[in-house]
């Protein structure tokens, strides 16, 4: 098994003399459960601390220990942070995958490998650096368990020497990673130094890859999307969390629990201003959220595809009974259990239309950790304003990997608690009818138990304006039409897309979520390599705002780029298109479980353009 999908030789091997500075990808292939995460984070942080833009992508198995795992770190002076299609520098620590990992490298790459694996005969067009890890680790500690854990830190030391990564930054990163565990720090520093010393004494630099200090990361933070979303939820004033563990969303609720414990205790009583319940399954998790939301709490859950399937029934209830709920879907790869630790954008249609009958739901589409933070807050406001379940579609790549970001800004907008009936409003509107469209925006007024306002009967069965059971045709149709009107109101409230026009339009690209980062790179490639200027619209929400149709109108043709097989967002767009718009839409899809890369987009777009011509 390999996760390097390079089958395409794009250029000849680079001459050795050339220096490639701050523009390459390092991949550490290890066995999971071997402590490689610490080594990889230290490597990532060191480069980040040197001021070089980085991104780190963990490709790990659905397993606790013993299976192959790959961690890819990309350094990019230009700031490209999507996955790089090719691996330039491989650290081959895993006997199971080493051979294939080496065979899939592009020519000109370099390999640090565990000496006994004897990889150097596999190819003549890559540089090999054998390192006797066991021998080196033997000089650091005699404890077998510790040896296993610090073994990987040795390759950080080797890379420090080979790639000119500052040892001082390595130590700083290690301290950041280890906290106050001085003994562990000393041990790991020993491993780092031993690796460095070995490389200095026994290896001759033959590859072109070098890290040089820059100033492009000053003031930035490194954070995972799930942690960012958790911070957003806390700032959004969440008071109820119902969840069920599932990869890759668990760390969202787990981070949230940590933050809430620390920052949401009542200062006087020490009691919690929130409740977090680990439910018996995703059905119950959303059921609890709906119960709490009905009661007036700001309630959320987070899950992934299989949980979304289970939540269908309650989502329909939330839609029809009009109860606010926030659902984070940190997307992984399906169908069914699929690839639980790989990334994709495969839940777009499922969430947009989740549940039977005529249902549709607002989706927020964060592309960055910053948007995980801001859209968490948007989601709670929208859910309460629209009195409906709102989905935030993150993905494994965004949720579980570290991304650079500016420190998040403190929210300036107060929480929007939506249309809650009070005595004054009741006087103005005369009579409380739970499902009456008083304001013409499809959003009725609601009361909650214990607020002293009139009660009503909430049900998932047919009901009239007064929330009474009804099977009357007019009651049913009027209600469904009002819900559709409410969805039109949602269109005016959701985050607008980001649009960049190139001239009159020309070739347009539409993407969303983490696909964005591949588009940033691909657009530069198209411009620099094929002289194609593209216009770009990054979707940030569903339902689509008017900017989307305007964009399609202005472009000659529009590629919708996404990480699923069935062009799911394209399908949603087509549902709203005029025939002329429909005819302009093209599709580029990427669904191998790994984050989409710019090169794949560029190649596929050029292919389709050639076919067009």
């Amino acid at each position: 098994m390999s996760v390097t999908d390079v089958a395409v030789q794009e250029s000849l091997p680079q001459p050795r003399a050339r220096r490639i500075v701050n523009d390459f990808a390092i991949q550490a292939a290890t066995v999971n459960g071997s402590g490689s995460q610490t080594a990889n984070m230290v490597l990532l942080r060191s480069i980040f601390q040197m001021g070089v833009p980085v991104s780190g992508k963990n490709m790990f198995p659905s397993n606790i220990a013993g299976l192959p795992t790959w961690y890819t770190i990309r350094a990019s002076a230009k700031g490209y942070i999507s996955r790089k299609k090719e691996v330039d520098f491989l650290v081959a620590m895993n006997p199971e995958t080493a051979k294939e990992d080496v065979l899939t490298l592009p020519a000109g790459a370099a390999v640090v490998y565990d000496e006994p694996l004897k990889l150097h005969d596999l190819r003549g067009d890559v540089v090999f650096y054998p390192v006797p890890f066991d021998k080196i680790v033997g000089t650091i500690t005699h404890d077998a368990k510790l040896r296993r854990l610090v073994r990987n830190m040795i390759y950080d030391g080797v890379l420090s020497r080979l790639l000119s990564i500052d040892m001082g930054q390595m130590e700083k990163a290690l301290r950041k990673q280890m906290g106050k565990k001085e003994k562990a720090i000393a041990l790991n520093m020993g491993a780092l130094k031993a690796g460095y010393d070995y490389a200095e004494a026994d290896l001759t630099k033959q590859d072109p890859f070098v890290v040089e200090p820059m100033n492009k990361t000053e003031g930035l933070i490194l954070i995972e999307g799930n942690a960012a979303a958790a911070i957003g939820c806390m700032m959004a004033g969440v008071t109820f969390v119902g969840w069920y563990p599932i990869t890759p969303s668990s760390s969202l609720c787990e981070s949230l629990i940590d933050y809430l414990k620390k920052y949401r205790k009542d200062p006087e009583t020490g009691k919690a201003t929130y409740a977090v319940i680990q439910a018996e399954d995703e059905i119950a998790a959303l059921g609890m959220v709906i119960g709490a939301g009905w009661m007036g709490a700001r309630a959320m859950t987070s899950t992934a595809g299989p949980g979304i399937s289970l939540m269908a029934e309650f989502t329909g209830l939330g839609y029809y009974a009009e109860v606010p709920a926030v659902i984070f879907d940190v997307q992984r790869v399906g169908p069914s259990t699929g690839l639980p630790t790989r990334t994709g954008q495969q839940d777009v249609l499922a969430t947009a239309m989740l549940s039977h009958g005529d249902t549709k739901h607002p989706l927020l589409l964060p592309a960055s950790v910053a948007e995980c933070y801001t859209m968490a807050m948007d989601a709670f406001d929208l859910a309460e304003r629209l009195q409906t379940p709102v989905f935030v579609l993150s993905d494994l790549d965004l949720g579980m990997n570290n991304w650079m970001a500016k420190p998040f800004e403190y929210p300036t907008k107060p929480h929007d608690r939506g249309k809650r009936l009070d005595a004054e409003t009741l006087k103005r509107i005369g009579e409380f009818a739970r499902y009456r469209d008083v304001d013409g925006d499809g959003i009725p007024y609601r009361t909650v138990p214990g607020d002293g306002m009139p009660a009503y009967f909430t049900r998932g069965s047919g009901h009239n304006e007064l929330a009474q059971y009804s099977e009357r045709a007019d009651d049913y149709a009027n209600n469904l039409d009002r819900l559709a009107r409410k969805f039109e109101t949602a269109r005016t409230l959701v985050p607008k897309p980001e649009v960049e026009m190139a001239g009159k339009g020309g070739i347009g690209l539409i993407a969303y979520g983490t696909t964005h980062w591949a588009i940033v790179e691909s657009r530069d490639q198209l411009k620099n390599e094929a002289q194609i200027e593209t216009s770009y619209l990054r979707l940030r929400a569903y339902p689509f705002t008017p900017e989307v149709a305007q964009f399609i109108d202005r472009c000659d043709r529009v590629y919708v780029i996404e990480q699923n097989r069935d062009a799911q967002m394209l399908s949603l767009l087509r549902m709203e298109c005029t025939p002329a718009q429909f005819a302009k839409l093209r599709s580029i899809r990427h669904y191998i479980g790994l984050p989409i890369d710019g090169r794949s987009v560029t190649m596929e777009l050029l292919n389709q353009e050639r076919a067009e011509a």
Partner: protein
Amino acid sequence: MSTTPAQPPAAPGKKINRIGLEPVAYRGGKTTLCAGCGHNAITERIIDSFFELGIDPTQVIKLSGIGCSSKAPAYFLNDAHGFNAVHGRMPSISTGAVIANRKTIAIGISGDGDTGAIGIGQFVHLMRRNLPIVYVIEDNGCYGLTKGQFSPTADLGSTLKSGVVNDLPPIDTCALAIELGASFVARSFSGDPKQLKAILKAALSHRGTCMLDVISPCVTFNDHEGSTKSYSYVKDHEEPLSDVSFVPYFEGIDVEYNPGTTTAVTLHNGSKILLSKLAEDYHPTDKMSALRLLHETTARGEYATGIIYIEPDKQDFIDLLGIVDEPLASLPESRTRPGKAVLNEIMESFR
């Protein structure tokens, strides 16, 4: 479910309760269930119990799943918020709702299919958590709303009208609830109004999960010869474990009783339940004994009724959570959005 409030019976001599409300304040919509349905009798006892205890209906939430039983919340306490949820999922809705507002008094109405079949998973976890709620199963051993199929509480050998014999053993929801951690478990019969009302009032005064399995014959589909949930069968096989009397704290009555034959249980609010033994080996505060009694009576083809198990001082789920005294749902932004310094501190940790 009806859309028109029922005409209340004339209040004899302006009967009012301790908070000054008349019985009419506790009524709901007119029932749409079959005439003679056991569920209607249970509704009446619920109305009586809330009235007599003087509970403010606006502080109550009434929840249900799906099925004939689950229509019942529409027939009592019009001034309470109601939530007719989805099939078998009322426990999770209740859990979120009660946690979001700990001041609320929750009553959930379910059926034997809604609880024992589709909802057994959520039921199990509700019992485990000991959430403060009165959970009533209106148990008729069949699916009434879909025309009489067996439910998981149908007894072995019981027959459908068509003659089909049930060949699977029943789930005993009381035994299950005791095993799982519910702190108040009772079984009653819709045809025994006195006992049912006493149990309901006791349950409404208990903090924790009260699981009430009320056998409630389905007059349309399960009241024939061959059914073990018919009026006549249950009347003949009901084995009351005790005479249940309930003395609310506000009545301040000093009751005399013989500790040799009567078990007195004091609830957290000072109310008392007096259980005068009718059965041998009846020890309602002893879990093992309660389970043994259930198994023995079941083996004899009898329904042991009354308060089968009670653990008056068990910590409920709300206490366990350590949440603030005010409802979470109404906490102002000043208490739910941490200040700028907190965000700065968090951001610093990611540098």
